């Protein structure tokens, strides 16, 4: 996997997010950018991708023409299976999630706050079409990583001192990965861990509506 400046921002985020996975982990990929992570799994990494509709061990999306009508993920994409995959009902699928056996959950978001509050549910002014599995994943996965554009389409920051939208879960986010930076949510506040090759500390801070902490020394680039 390579990062290049010409990569679409969503793919760049997905490619960087893939590096947070460890072999053996049970991982759930939300809809949107998280779902792109499947295309960037590091070679040799053996993870078990869970899908809320009752699958553990999803592989890449099905090639055109080779889809299985009985095999979709929770985003309705036709997918393949990896060795060791299994099927189960929706109650067991969420027992896996709420019971704490999901090591890592990647979620998209509308807003995320400096203390890890997540708001990715209700768009202002609209009735929400439902929370799906997102609330349970956010609240119960061992580690939640938000993968999101750093700003809204209108240029407003998504990383805030405090969320303005209704929350999905409180204090659940451990890491935020955007096209500009990798930021950890720490007890002291938001700690910049990595910065995009084409960005600057100043740009990241300016486009973040919460104070950033910087670790000592050179900040790695991605």
């Amino acid at each position, binding site marked *: 996997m390579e990062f290049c400046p010409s990569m679409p921002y969503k793919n760049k985020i997905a490619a960087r997010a893939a590096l947070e996975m460890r072999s053996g982990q049970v991982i759930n990929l939300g809809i949107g950018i998280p779902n792109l992570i499947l295309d960037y799994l590091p070679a040799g990494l053996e993870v078990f991708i869970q899908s809320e509709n009752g699958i553990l061990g999803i592989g890449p999306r099905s090639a055109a023409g080779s*889809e299985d*009508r009985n095999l979709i993920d929770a985003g309705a994409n036709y997918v393949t299976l990896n060795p060791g995959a299994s099927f189960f009902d929706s109650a067991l699928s969420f027992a896996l999630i709420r019971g704490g056996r999901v090591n890592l959950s990647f979620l998209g978001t509308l807003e995320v706050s400096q203390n890890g509050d997540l708001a990715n549910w209700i768009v202002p002014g609209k009735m929400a079409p439902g929370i799906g599995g997102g609330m349970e994943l956010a609240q119960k996965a061992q580690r939640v990583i938000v993968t999101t554009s750093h700003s809204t389409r209108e240029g407003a920051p998504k990383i805030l001192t405090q969320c303005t939208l209704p929350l999905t879960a409180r204090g659940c986010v451990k890491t935020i990965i955007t096209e500009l930076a990798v930021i950890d949510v720490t007890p002291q506040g938001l700690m910049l861990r990595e910065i995009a090759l084409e960005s600057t500390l100043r740009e990241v801070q300016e486009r973040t509506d919460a104070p950033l902490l910087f670790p000592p020394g050179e900040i790695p680039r991605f």
Partner: protein
Amino acid sequence: MIDKTTTIDNALSQVYDGQTIMVGGFGGPGTPFTLIELLHQQGVKNLTLIKNDANEPGMGISRLLEAGQVKTLIASHIGLNPAAVAMMNRRELEVLLYPQGILAEKIRAGGAGLLGFLTDIGVDTILRDSREVMHLDGREAILERALRADVTLIHAAIADRAGNLIFAKSARNFCPLMATAADRVIVEVEKVVDTGSLDPDQIHLPGAFVDSILALDELTPDYGILPQHAL
């Protein structure tokens, strides 16, 4: 030998206006498109439907929603169906939405003869405002009631004549749960085999939960690959 197979004319003979009906499926897989179409043709109205999602416009339960046969939809996420979202926004359809795993548990609790369960999912969110809140060891918990239905409609890959079911891949989803939670369970299947030919260790749902089985002669295009979700 016990034979629970039925005919297309009799399959829904005991489904009536105003009933609560659970419908299996998560997206396409597991959705009983043929039974839904029969329900549509039969014209029953004022239904309360319980299903994970609302399928997509023109397909599955969306046909019932669009035809005005449904009063209330209990679901987890209807985002893939703009027609249903529009009806909800225009208040032509009452929609009750639950976190997906909580919806699954409510159905399972009904099937297991429980009255309800306590969860901490959503206690810190606005969900709390529309829920029954209890206190447990000094912390708040949400009480979720068990759900049951008059009728459950599901799709399975294989049934024997006694009603033992096997589901295919991600078509399992809500189907076995819903089959435990209704007074009358009607299953459409792709293949009927003789009782005794299935391995008892590989049966996904014991026949005791199944009342009647409709063998499908053909699978309509709704069951096939949907181009909008392929690469």
